[in-house]
């Protein structure tokens, strides 16, 4: 049997990458910024609003309408190669005047760099931002989750549906600060709604039409699905 896999020690990094070491004695603010932040400032100028370094992690604040372009450049540029998307999420502050933040965590595996991108959405503005799905396929579910929990619409995402909550969930967006911890309805109301649900109606139109099974359904269910009506609402 040939060797099934090679055991490698140096990791996936390029020769010029930083030497990995456990971060120690990080300053609260004002440590060394990620070199990519300066390069972004040179390249994109006014689209970079601010660069912060907190606990050794660099955060770059972007203008909301340039996100996709900048992320594409970070991904493609051979001197940076941010090829790995760790996370897409959002932060809403307790202070209602503060803007809502959409956060991307990127990694450059070849250069062992970590970068946080943020864009601010002022209160009252439309919660909309470009999807990075065209660059990173891994953004698919992460963006759907951010939509599900915060109501942020990612422009250009192929399938912007709820993911953790069910599709007919009408109470709003659970991780928003105006959403009460126990939900908007009482326990008994939530239970009543859950018992009212018809499990048969949980197929979405898309799934049914794809299989041409729609015509085989009982007529009453077909009618209900066609009218977009799901029980219990």
């Amino acid at each position, binding site marked *: 049997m040939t060797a099934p*896999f090679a055991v490698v020690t140096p*990791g996936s990094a390029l020769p010029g990458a930083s030497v990995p070491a*456990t971060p120690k004695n990080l300053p609260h603010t004002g440590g060394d910024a990620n070199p990519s932040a300066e390069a972004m400032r040179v390249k994109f100028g006014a689209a970079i609003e601010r660069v912060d370094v907190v606990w050794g992690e660099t955060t770059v604040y972007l203008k909301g309408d340039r996100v996709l372009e900048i992320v594409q450049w970070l991904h493609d540029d051979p001197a940076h190669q941010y090829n790995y998307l760790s996370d897409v999420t959002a932060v809403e502050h307790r202070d209602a005047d503060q803007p809502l933040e959409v956060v991307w*965590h990127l990694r450059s595996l070849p250069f062992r760099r970590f970068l946080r991108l943020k864009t601010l959405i002022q209160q009252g503005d439309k919660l909309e931002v470009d999807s990075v799905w065209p660059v990173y396929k891994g953004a698919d579910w992460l963006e759907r989750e951010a939509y599900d929990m915060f109501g942020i619409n990612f422009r250009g995402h192929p399938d912007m549906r709820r993911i953790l909550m069910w599709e007919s969930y009408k109470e709003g967006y659970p*991780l928003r600060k105006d959403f009460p911890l126990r939900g908007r309805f009482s326990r008994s109301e939530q239970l009543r709604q859950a018992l009212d649900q018809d499990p048969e109606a949980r197929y979405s139109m898309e799934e049914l039409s794809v299989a041409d099974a729609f015509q085989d359904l009982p007529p009453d269910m077909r009618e209900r699905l066609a009218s977009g009506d799901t029980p219990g609402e």
Partner: protein
Amino acid sequence: MSRRTVEYELSTTGLDAQGRPRRVPLVTDGGTAVAFEPPPSVEPELEGEHMLINLGPQHPATHGVLRLVLELDGETVVRCIPHVGYLHCGFEKIGEYRQYNQIIPWTDREDYLNSPGNNVAFALGAERLFGIEITERCKVLRVIAAELSRIMSHLVWLGTTCIDIGAFTPFLWSFQERENIYKLLEDWIGARLTTSLTRVGGMGADIPAGWTQGLNNFIRTFPKTIDEVDRMLTRNAIWVGRTVGLGVMTPEEAVNYGLSGPMLRASGVAYDVRRDFPYLDYETYDFDVPVSTHGDVYDRYLVRMEEMRQSVRILQQASARLPDGPINIDDPRVILPPKNKAMNEMESMIHHFKLVMEGPRPPIGEAYVAVESPKGEKGYYMVSDGTSKPVRWRIRPPSFVNLSAIPKMVEGHLLSDVIAINASIDIVMGEIDR
């Protein structure tokens, strides 16, 4: 991709000249198993008709409550639509109403096969946010906890995957070994599954006297079990036939889909958080990162087996270097006073009361700390506004992102292979749905 040959042993044929079971090469071409001649159609009028089936959420092979809606052409999967969220309990929302130490029990319950590892990850994140440097003994104890829980999680993966694919015996062996780790954890912290092992700035408890003896016993005996499973499966005809060439992800695809952990390394990308973005002084331990090249179910199995062996190596070194000293940092802002002082001295009692009722307060800031969990890159992102409760506590769930690639992996394969591919992702629905 090159043609690939895996030699395996047939359990039913005769012996060769040396008296060993005869080995027969199984050839696959470019990641897809060599096609059989399709049998003649039984019902020609149904040809081309697609069928929807609903796998889960109550199917034992979906490892919890995953639901896959599969569109089938015969037995071939044309399309796969996963549905998750059946276990959603709003951990992140609850975290916004809890002090940092109060969140630690919630981390037990997300990836519940890896509770000590999650506790360690959360404590590291909170300590970054507080600007705390933990003690040397605490670091080594946390490495021991994290590696034990990696082995524990991989053993569950191994056992349940064997059951899914049709082998029963390795399941019993791996759960026996898992029981040994549970005994160790029970002696350490008193709990088996929901350990809540760490605190911000230290550990919930120091190891009891003589505990390292038990750990060393485990380190000595455990590799034998791995070897046995290895002998049982690695060149087993059924195992190879059911895993080789399934669910292939190329390195570029794997990185682009955000896969991490053994899923990514089986595709040939040597990214391990312990190696590339170290924490807990992992750069000072001598261990290898196993990387495979084909990116199929079989290689994920090989990578996880080797990872368990490497974890044993790390445990040996950690056990040997475990220094004496305190487990908690000497900082009254986050660490409770000793119990005898809190019961006997007024100042300590007030201090204890304030710390429990109000909680430690980190400065304004944010931190994303990722660790290498058994499933992949597990990140905790915390934002503080200076109060004792986080504004946002975000879990970056590795199996959530890994699972999002399942449509890509199963499409074109047989229905029975969906089970094997799904098992190879090593999902934990508690972590996916949170």
